[in-house]
């Protein structure tokens, strides 16, 4: 479980996040939604430690990520997987080398065991016949799958996805959404998906946090969304603008 308490983030004299509090449970598709520039990417980057919040706490279980020592943070990060908006695959490595990379760095597996794990991850994301290809040689949807496979290669506890559907066609987007939910439930991972795609929200949003101008504006489940729109003008506008 991840809990964030009173997160503020300033860039120079500009405040981006205002007192955000939330709790993300494992085995559930947690969605952080909002328009571009609302601060959701900043929030997710604060949570994985790519940015440091100006104030507040980020609790992974009982550990406050911000107050951890450098090496403790590095150790905790090995339990975190992240799917980046631009995939962030290592372009000098093949698909299987990309997935093998965290295993080679942090596991004590033998080369045979690593190969087996790589193949398992590739099968899990339904990607075949691409092992020896370089990222530049595969499609956007395949890159997302490789990104997911790399993220789950080490048995992670937390998965962050920054706009997993960006640049994908609607059909592939739904496949990736389903894959993320399946993996979340199968491995009981705490998954946080950052999205502005309302179709994703309606498809998989079990726990949704709507960020508006850096503030947590609404929190609920997809079933509560229709009712919430009636009383929440900003949420309604965001919902309508997404279609």
């Amino acid at each position, binding site marked *: 479980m991840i809990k964030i308490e009173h997160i503020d983030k300033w860039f120079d004299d500009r405040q981006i996040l205002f007192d955000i509090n939330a709790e993300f449970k494992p085995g559930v598709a947690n969605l952080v939604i909002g328009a571009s520039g609302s601060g959701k990417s900043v929030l997710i980057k604060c949570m994985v430690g790519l940015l440091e919040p100006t104030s507040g706490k980020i609790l992974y279980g009982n550990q406050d990520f911000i107050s951890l020592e450098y090496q403790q943070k590095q150790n905790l990060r*090995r339990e*975190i997987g992240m799917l980046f908006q631009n995939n962030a695959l290592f*372009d000098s490595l093949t698909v299987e080398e990309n997935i093998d990379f*965290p295993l*080679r*760095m942090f596991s004590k597996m033998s080369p045979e065991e690593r190969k087996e794990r790589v193949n398992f991850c590739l099968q899990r994301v339904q990607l075949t016949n691409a092992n020896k290809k370089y990222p530049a040689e595969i499609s956007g949807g395949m890159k997302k799958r490789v990104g997911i496979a790399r993220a789950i290669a080490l048995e992670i506890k937390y998965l962050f996805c920054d706009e997993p559907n960006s640049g994908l066609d609607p059909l592939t987007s739904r496949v990736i959404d389903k894959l993320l939910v399946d993996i979340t439930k199968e491995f009981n991972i705490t998954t946080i998906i950052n999205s502005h795609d309302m179709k994703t929200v309606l498809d998989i949003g079990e726990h949704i946090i709507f960020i508006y101008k850096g503030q947590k504006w609404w929190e609920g489940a997809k079933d509560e969304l229709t009712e919430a729109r009636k009383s929440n003008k900003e949420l309604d506008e965001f919902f309508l603008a997404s279609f």
Partner: protein
Amino acid sequence: MNLISEIGRFVIFMKFVLHRPEKAKVFWKITFREMYLIGIDSLLIVILIATFTGAVTTIQTANQLLSPSDLYPTQLMPKFVIGSVIGTSSLLELAPTVTCLVLAGKIGANIASEIGNMKVSEQIDAYEVMGINSASFVTLPKILAGLIMIPCLIIIANFLLLYGGVLACKATSSLTADDLIQGARLVFKPLYLKVMLTKSFIFAFLITSLSSFQGYYTTGGALEVGIAGTKAVTKICIFILFFDLIIAQLFLKS
């Protein structure tokens, strides 16, 4: 003020870079690949530049010292003096400084663009999220490879500068190869070798570390990656010339 904050940022960056590698096997594998890219891939340009510079410098020096002059009787000028000028300037300046200025353009721009591209495509962030010290993982192999290979390139360049001079002697009747070699050997001092090696290690560090630093802090897109490459080369050239002067002052002040 901007320069001070930039130096401060560089020091902090180096503090992260100089960390024990996460996994020695992976580190050495990357370092050997970088040694190939920095050393072997730069060999051709170093061979060409050193040989031609040696030949041209010899011809020009011979022309200046042996042409009839009203200032001094050129017929009394011993020809080995030309060799001593070429030998000394090769060791002290041409081999380390000119070679490194060329390598700044080749290796520096390449490293800054490579790391800059990794930065804007979030690959650096991916290392960080995995719990890898990205500054060290990406930069340390390059610095180490540079510290090993660039001095080797400079030593090769030094021999080739003299070889270029010998080739020039064969093409001209005013000077023999023996005059050139004899002159170079006559004035050789171990101090010159020390200066050359000191310069080569410092310049190697400047080329690899400054370009990595420039690339690592790239933000934006493809345009900024290109700008990072250009900025890296400019900064490296300025620092090479600055340290060239300092080293000359420290070692050769009479």
